[in-house]
């Protein structure tokens, strides 16, 4: 037998097989550890999901703010550029009311415009009474 001349083999053979936990013990420990593992994984996934949602919300909010900001700068110029069907009569009528008051007289409304009324209210009034 060759293994008689091999001290390493003799040593291992003399030591014998390593002790093992019974299947029942291994099963019990595995069940407990698995439960803990699943808990850890779920918690981590939950945190990751929450972080992802928060990041998405922040990105969306930032994008919306950016778009609104860009549009806020463009609205007046765009409005001036687009011709409105009411634009010309309104300007004319407003000018008339500011000048000689002929507009009210022309519509048989002998009431002068309210002095304290803001200009845009005046415009609205003019539109409705057209």
């Amino acid at each position, binding site marked *: 037998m060759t293994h008689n001349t091999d001290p390493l083999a003799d040593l291992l053979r003399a030591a014998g097989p390593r002790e093992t*936990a019974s299947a029942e*013990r291994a099963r019990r420990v595995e069940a407990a550890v698995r439960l803990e*593992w699943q808990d850890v994984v779920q918690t981590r996934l939950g945190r990751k999901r929450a972080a992802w949602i928060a990041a998405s919300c922040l990105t969306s909010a930032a994008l919306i703010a950016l778009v609104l900001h860009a549009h806020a700068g463009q609205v007046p110029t765009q409005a001036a550029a687009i011709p409105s069907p009411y634009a010309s009569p309104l300007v004319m009528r407003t000018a008339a009311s500011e000048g000689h008051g002929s507009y009210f007289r022309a519509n048989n409304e002998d009431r002068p415009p309210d002095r304290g009324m803001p200009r845009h209210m005046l415009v609205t009034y003019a539109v409705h009474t057209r």
Partner: protein
Amino acid sequence: MPDEPQRGTFRDKVLVRRLLEGEEAAFRLFFDGHFPRLYRFALSRTEGDHDAAEEIAQKTLITAMRKLHTFRGEATLFTWLCAICRREVSAWRVARGRHAALMLSEDAPEIRNQLAALASVAAQQPDQAFDRGETARLVQVALDLLPGSYSEVLEWKYIYGLTVNEISERKSTGPKAVESLLGRARRSFRQVFLVLAHGQVVYDS
């Protein structure tokens, strides 16, 4: 050979990442690869109390699960688990009114450092002063410290007496690969065992 511990820690880091992602196969690999060794580690520190070894191994693995994200891969996963297990053993000993510090030969810091680094070892014969029981225990500790494939193939070959062909069938590899694996396993075993056997033995400091 010097790359083996580094490969081991890299493998362990990958295993930990897979575990944290919730991969079932990773859990199987982790539990089957570490529980038996950890159980024996605890058993040798609880004077052969199987119930205590089970309790300590379970507590160790549960603590490890909670701290898994802190594993940096600076040592192997088994070394990391052993560090947790030593604390659990101390707590267990204190709870039973025993001295907390039980130091086995492989627990001595200088031995642990040598084992971790697998520093160059003088080619000496095992110390004859060790009694048979202690030698057998150290052989088993050395096997537990080796990568799983090494200890497995050594056990199959020298303890259960399987032939190279039978091992190659079990491992689904060729006989040449098995012979090569056996050669590496023998070299690693010799290094680890010599570190263990020639270290300063300190009991109950």
